[in-house]
């Protein structure tokens, strides 16, 4: 019985971790849906958003190191701090500007190219953004605090304690992440399914020429999609940054999003969520149940093995578009 209750706690924690994975996977899905391109830079976008947010919030001077090195000055901060909500809005603005620049400087010149070419471009973009983030805001690990509650949730602990006689340990930040992620997904699904911009986005993903012929501006849609992806990256960056500090390894969470996408399907927003949850729960339960038998540390590889199995048996993922081919 104790084991079962403990497993339930592990399950819940797995769900919460899964939400965090799903947040990152969402950004990938959006861009893939709209351009058929796997955006390698999505993880770095989250990092860049988090760095910018901390920088703005703490009144850091961008490019301070570079300016100091060039002019021999000693600049660090403007000496003010910006309220979290304003800093978030400003960062969102930066992400839109970034989306516009990406369209202007990269995508516009690659219209009609093979997806692999666009994929390579996003790899370049990832490295560039990582460097830019470093030069702009410095490479040190920063703490991010936008006022999200953290630490053990006493409500959950006392409620579960009264039911099972054992208090569950759930981080309040994880609960908030789940709530915010649900809202975000609901908003995104409504946007893609019911708005004309959403319909235009799906049309662009399907066929550029046809989209042009019904009067859709590719450039507008791309700026829009990359802005939304930047916004999702910002949310992911806030969550992960609050959880584990803003550091450059943040860009590696993109790697965890990969198995999530293979499970959920590259084109499905709900798929990203379900995939994230399955991976989150799966790796926690596996570690809990099987981990001790094989010496632990299964969390590092479980997700990828699961994804591999899916690739063999259901390559389009759980919710991906059926692969239709007329012969």
């Amino acid at each position, binding site marked *: 019985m104790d084991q079962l209750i403990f497993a339930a706690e592990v399950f819940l924690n797995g769900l919460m971790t899964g939400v965090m994975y799903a947040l990152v996977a969402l950004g990938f899905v959006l861009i893939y849906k709209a351009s058929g391109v796997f955006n390698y830079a999505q993880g770095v976008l989250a990092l860049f958003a988090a760095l910018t947010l901390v920088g703005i919030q703490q009144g850091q001077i961008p490019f301070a190191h570079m300016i100091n090195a060039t002019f021999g000055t000693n600049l660090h901060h403007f000496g003010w701090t910006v309220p979290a909500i304003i800093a978030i809005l400003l960062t969102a603005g930066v992400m839109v500007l970034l989306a516009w620049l990406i369209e202007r400087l990269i995508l516009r010149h690659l219209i009609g190219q093979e997806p692999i070419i666009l994929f390579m471009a996003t790899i370049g973009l990832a490295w560039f953004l990582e460097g830019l983030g470093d030069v702009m805001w410095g490479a040190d690990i920063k703490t991010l605090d936008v006022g999200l509650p953290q630490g053990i949730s006493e409500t959950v602990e006392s409620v579960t304690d009264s039911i099972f006689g054992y208090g569950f340990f759930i981080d309040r930040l994880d609960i908030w992440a789940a709530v915010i992620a649900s809202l975000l997904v609901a908003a995104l699904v*409504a*946007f893609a399914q*019911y708005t004309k911009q959403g319909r235009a986005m*799906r049309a662009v993903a399907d*066929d550029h020429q046809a989209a042009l*012929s019904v*009067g859709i501006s*590719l450039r507008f849609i791309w700026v829009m999609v990359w802005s939304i992806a930047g916004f999702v990256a910002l949310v992911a960056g806030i969550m992960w940054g609050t959880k584990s500090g803003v550091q450059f390894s943040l860009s590696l969470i993109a790697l965890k999003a990969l198995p999530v996408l293979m499970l959920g399907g590259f084109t499905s927003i709900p798929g990203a969520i379900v995939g994230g949850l399955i991976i989150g729960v799966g790796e926690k339960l596996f570690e809990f149940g099987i981990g001790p038998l094989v010496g632990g540390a299964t969390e590092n590889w479980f997700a990828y093995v699961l994804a591999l199995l899916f690739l063999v048996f259901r390559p389009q993922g759980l919710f991906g578009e059926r692969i*239709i081919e*007329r012969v």
Partner: protein
Amino acid sequence: MIEEQSHYITPDGRKIGGVMMEMKNITLRFGGVTAIKDISFDIRQGEIRAIIGPNGAGKSSMLNIISGFYRPQEGEVWFKGERRGPMKPYEVARLGIARTFQNIALFDGMSVLDNIMTGRLNSMKAGFLSQALWWGAAEREEIAHREKVEKIIDFLEIQNIRKTPVGRLPYGLKKRVELARALAAEPQLLLLDEPMAGMNVEEKEDMSRFILDVNDEFGTTIALIEHDMGVVMDLSDRVVVMDYGKKIGDGTPDEVRNNQEVIDAYLGVAHD
């Protein structure tokens, strides 16, 4: 000659109006290859205008110029009495010029209904917030657009495949869905790039009937490209004949049929 009149009456009694679109001295080159050489012709309000010619004559290029996919090096494009500057395809579409493609450009992953609804994107006005929340003006608007789309679906007799993903449809039906999407934009000028290519006799007859009905019922001006001489001669009011990028004939089907140059281009000439 028809060219000088402000309007004319077709043999079947339809009245064709003034000039809607005018191409003046169009020349298009791809690198060193001249695809279209100094061609001028017009399209009149309400008529069915065909562009015919052997393979590689430059017909599709001409259509691509009208719809903004290609930009000619020389010449002027006039639409409704105004000279059209260089325009992007989506801007042309917003002017009220819709088109279909020779090798079908539909959104394969979307349902037939969604595909046709994309044709109405430019006439949707409600803000995206109210659309996402399905609220107020957006709801009324979506219903109004759906009614129009359903009318077109009925008209083209594709009710039973409404919800089917386009990727699963056979070729002939895809062509019909593409026509439906173009019609959904309620275009003033409809461009059809080989609407009957690859179809069997029955499908061709269906498509001919739809084209005539569209013209008749909605008063849509239609410019079409076609290989099949028989079909073209039956459908169209006036025909432009192209060969090797040049215009070799222009007139009613009867005039064109008796034009020696046209006969030579199609049947070949014996050179001594």
